[in-house]
């Protein structure tokens, strides 16, 4: 497929602790087209961050075990690349924004230097040229150039996240992995940062995987959505389909639990129970115990992906009709 930028096939990742095996990612398939922005949605422990880290191959080496799967980026299986080649991709063609801007920056280096460092590493240019480009990047994310020589502690949270974004975009990557980029920020600052990210990705034509638990951010920012639950993608489709015609009971439950300003319901409708223990996943459908529509067959074998509309798949044998 020509226009697929990234293709993840049957990815399985486990974490090993002294006593247990944590099944973090179980047979995930995900395709991202050039220029597409996809929202990867799910709760804590759904495996969202593990997917992103697998793409960049930055999983913790000792504990994590990438059991099987293939990750094709621009037609090359990255899991077979040598570490040397991988290093040329990280921060260059694929870069990542981490959740917490307070810990993502080096506290004892000037912010401008940290941006220039990335640029210099991936391009054969002189230091002055790299610094000049770093200045341009700062301007682009809305930070005045004269703050080039300041240290991270002199910036506020929103400003630090802008620096991190400038670093991530410095080499004009074709894929940006944004792991909860605005979760640590106040809403008014979040609105500013998202607005900036939107105009940058349009300007640069970057594909984005936006990892978030906030469905509001997704509808505002993404073209398509993948809903993750207990290490699987349970529903995948365009934003329009997922928001206006969701089918998987978990997605429906997620919308019901969401406090929203436009609702007239006096009470929220939570999903009962908790996410299954990742060391001991049920053999059938992972959502079986919490599902209001579960049937006996659901507990027996894990459901397969069913395409209910072109581009809209769900992992549920009962694939309910109708919207929210």
């Amino acid at each position, binding site marked *: 497929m020509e226009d697929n930028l990234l293709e993840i096939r049957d990815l399985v990742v486990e974490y090993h602790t002294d006593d247990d095996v944590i099944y973090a990612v179980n047979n995930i398939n995900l395709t991202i087209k050039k220029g597409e922005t996809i929202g990867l949605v799910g*709760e804590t422990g759904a495996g969202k961050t593990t997917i992103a880290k697998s793409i960049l191959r930055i999983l913790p080496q000792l504990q994590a075990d990438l059991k099987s799967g293939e990750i094709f980026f621009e037609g090359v299986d990255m899991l077979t690349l040598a570490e040397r080649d991988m290093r040329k991709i990280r921060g260059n063609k694929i870069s990542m924004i981490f959740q917490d801007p307070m810990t993502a920056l080096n506290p004892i280096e000037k912010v401008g230097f940290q941006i220039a460092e990335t640029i210099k590493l991936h391009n054969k240019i002189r230091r002055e040229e790299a610094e000049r480009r770093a200045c341009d990047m700062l301007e682009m994310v809305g930070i005045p150039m004269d703050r080039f020589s300041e240290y991270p502690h002199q910036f506020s949270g929103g400003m630090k996240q802008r620096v991190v974004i400038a670093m991530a975009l410095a080499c004009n990557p074709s894929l940006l992995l944004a792991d909860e980029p605005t979760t640590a920020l106040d809403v008014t600052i979040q*609105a*500013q940062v998202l*607005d900036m990210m939107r105009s940058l990705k349009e300007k640069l034509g970057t594909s984005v995987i936006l990892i978030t*638990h906030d469905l509001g951010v997704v509808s505002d920012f993404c073209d398509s959505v993948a809903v993750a639950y207990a290490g699987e993608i349970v529903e995948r489709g365009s934003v329009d389909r997922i928001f206006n015609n969701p089918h998987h009971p978990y997605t429906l*439950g997620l919308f019901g639990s*969401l406090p929203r300003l436009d609702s007239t319901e006096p009470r929220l409708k939570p999903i009962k129970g*908790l996410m299954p223990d990742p060391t001991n996943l049920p053999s059938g459908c992972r959502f079986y115990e919490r599902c209001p529509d579960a049937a006996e067959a659901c507990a027996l074998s894990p459901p397969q992906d069913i395409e209910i509309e072109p581009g809209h798949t769900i992992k549920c044998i009962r694939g309910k009709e109708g919207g929210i």
Partner: protein
Amino acid sequence: MTPLLEVRDLKKYFKNKAGMLHAVDGIDFVLEEGKTLGVVGESGCGKTTLGRTVLHLIEATSGQILFEGKDISNPTKQEMHGIRRKMQIIFQDPFSSLNPRMSVCEAIMEPLVLHEHMSKSEMLTETRRLMDTVGIATRFENSYPHELDGGRRQRIGVARALALNPKFIVCDEPVSALDVSIQAQIINLMLDLQEQRGLAYMFVTHDLSVVKYISDDIMVMYLGQMVEKAPSDELFKNTCHPYSIALLSAIPVPVYPNNAQRVLLRGEITSPINPKPGCRFMARCRFAEEKCNEPQVIEECAPGHFVACCRYKEIKENKD
């Protein structure tokens, strides 16, 4: 009838190398029994300090706090011990607010040990009853916090706060560390408890969409001051202060197509150290003009709806 809690011109300043940090600067409110006041604002607006000052967890700089009609601004140690059982708090982070070396049972029992004259078996029965009330299975009574997930830990926090049958609970961002499906469970639990026990809540949060579900009145704070206060429905229907308008519009709404018109604020929150006398939101406000440099007077623009902005009428007319 005397209200349960009345706060008059409450101030809390912190001394700081650079000057006086005005964390809470002249807050007034009244809370009736069984009602909820939502306090909303962004980081650094003083909402947490307000909650803690009301509970005397930190001493107020000046102002009055009346609880059940009695002035408790300067209580003796003994008086405070009596007041404590009526006013409790649920903290934000269930990962750091519980003693890691206390089991679930010990943690919930602690307030009973400190305040009630009960035998050990009575306490145990009471603890189990509390666990049942907040929905933690008794099989967890000997578990330690690290063995539990965030939702269950927060339930312990709720049980501890309920143990002495208080009348008033300050809830300091009780659900912001939780996932949405768990968050909804805890919010519903708190609403149920309020109905059953007639509790009054002061619900401190940064999340306006959460507060909508739980509050009777909502107060929006900015840099230590109240900028707007109104009954919940009225605030959402008829938002007056430019800051509240921006705050509301900044919340991403989970609908598609998303045609929301965002009011993007310029800049960030200014320093709360030695603030100028005028409107504190002025530096970020697109309606700011000369007269905003004067101290803002709180006006009642509709019954029970207060706003601290000298231009709210003009802004409203322009919008309509």
